[in-house]
């Protein structure tokens, strides 16, 4: 099927009078696949399949990289070492400090899992960013939240962890009544909420934007000058946005991991 037949076929195009079918949030709620396994009827959504696939990819990659490590690294091993050094030097040591090396495995798996999950948004065939389902960022954030609250209670003492955070230094004593709720809410509620929402919203909005311009390119494709020009422009914007989206995907994975490191570092050292 070439462009001319697509443009003149009996579907929703510029002059067929059906209006622009703008994509909305429904594109994120796909029909789940149903399958029967050991007599149980299961419904599996695309995002779960992709997340399992990504987990498999990340595990396989790092096992393959570290299986036969030599002093003179092979090509695969040096890629793995670059990945490890990036997490260690750019995130763990930079943000946490001397104790950072212990957390490199955690931060590394977090970063690569999120990054490849996001990347699924532009991989042909998959084209669904896993992190645009709110449940995935929330689950990851809960994991991070439990980690830093536990570490803070362990390193600063179970009560001290909260009192250290609740009473900001450099403030007159009378203001504590007004400011302590903010500190506690900030520590316990808005921190994890903003961390999860930031990842979710970026992936959601990016996918919606790309879909809008793709649908626009299809809708405008019609035998007229405005249609042809508009369709070409819309397609060009789609290509540019896809490149931009790949940058955002890496950046959001990095920011999520960086914030995790910041919170862990804040739990390890009490502020004074």
């Amino acid at each position, binding site marked *: 099927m070439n462009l001319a037949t697509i443009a003149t076929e009996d579907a929703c195009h510029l002059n067929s009078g059906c209006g622009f079918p703008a994509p909305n949030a429904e594109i994120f709620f796909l029909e789940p696949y149903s399958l029967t396994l050991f007599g149980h009827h299961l419904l599996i959504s695309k995002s779960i399949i992709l997340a399992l696939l990504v987990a498999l990819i990340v595990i396989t990659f790092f096992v393959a990289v570290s299986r036969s490590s030599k002093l003179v690294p092979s090509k695969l091993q040096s890629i793995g070492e670059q990945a490890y050094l990036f997490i260690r030097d750019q995130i763990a040591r930079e943000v946490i*400090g001397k104790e950072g090396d212990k957390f490199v495995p955690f931060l590394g798996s977090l970063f690569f899992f999120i990054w490849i999950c996001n990347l699924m948004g532009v991989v042909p065939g998959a084209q669904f960013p896993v992190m645009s389902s709110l449940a995935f960022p929330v689950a990851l954030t809960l994991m991070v939240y439990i980690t830093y609250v536990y570490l803070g209670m362990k390193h600063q003492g179970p009560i001290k962890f909260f009192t250290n955070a609740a009473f900001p230094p*450099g403030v007159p004593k009378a203001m504590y009544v007004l400011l302590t709720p903010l500190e506690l809410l900030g520590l316990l509620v808005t921190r994890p909420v903003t961390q999860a929402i930031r990842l979710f919203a970026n992936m959601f909005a990016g996918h919606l934007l790309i879909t809008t311009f793709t649908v626009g390119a299809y809708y405008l494709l019609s035998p007229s000058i405005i249609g042809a020009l508009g369709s070409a422009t819309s397609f060009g914007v789609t290509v540019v946005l896809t490149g931009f989206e790949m940058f955002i995907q890496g950046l959001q994975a990095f920011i999520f991991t960086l914030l995790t490191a910041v919170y862990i570092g804040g739990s390890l*050292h009490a502020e004074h």
Partner: protein
Amino acid sequence: MKARDTDFPISDADRSTSDMAWRSVSYLTAGILFYGGIGWLLGQYFGHKSAFIAAGVIIGIVLALYLTYARVSFMERDTTTSDLRKPPQ
């Protein structure tokens, strides 16, 4: 490999303030939620809901900004003076 001191280009004092920008967003959200929520409750009780929520939101933002200012100036107090005393490289 053991970590050496030269592997850590950033001092501890600098590190503790590096998350302050993220934290200010968290304070602002918490301030709006908490004091806006109090305004909402008062509005439920007394009527004039919009006015109470708006006042609560403004108070929350002002307090969050004050908290950010207090935290930043307290944290930077040590690093700033030592930075200025250091001869330029």
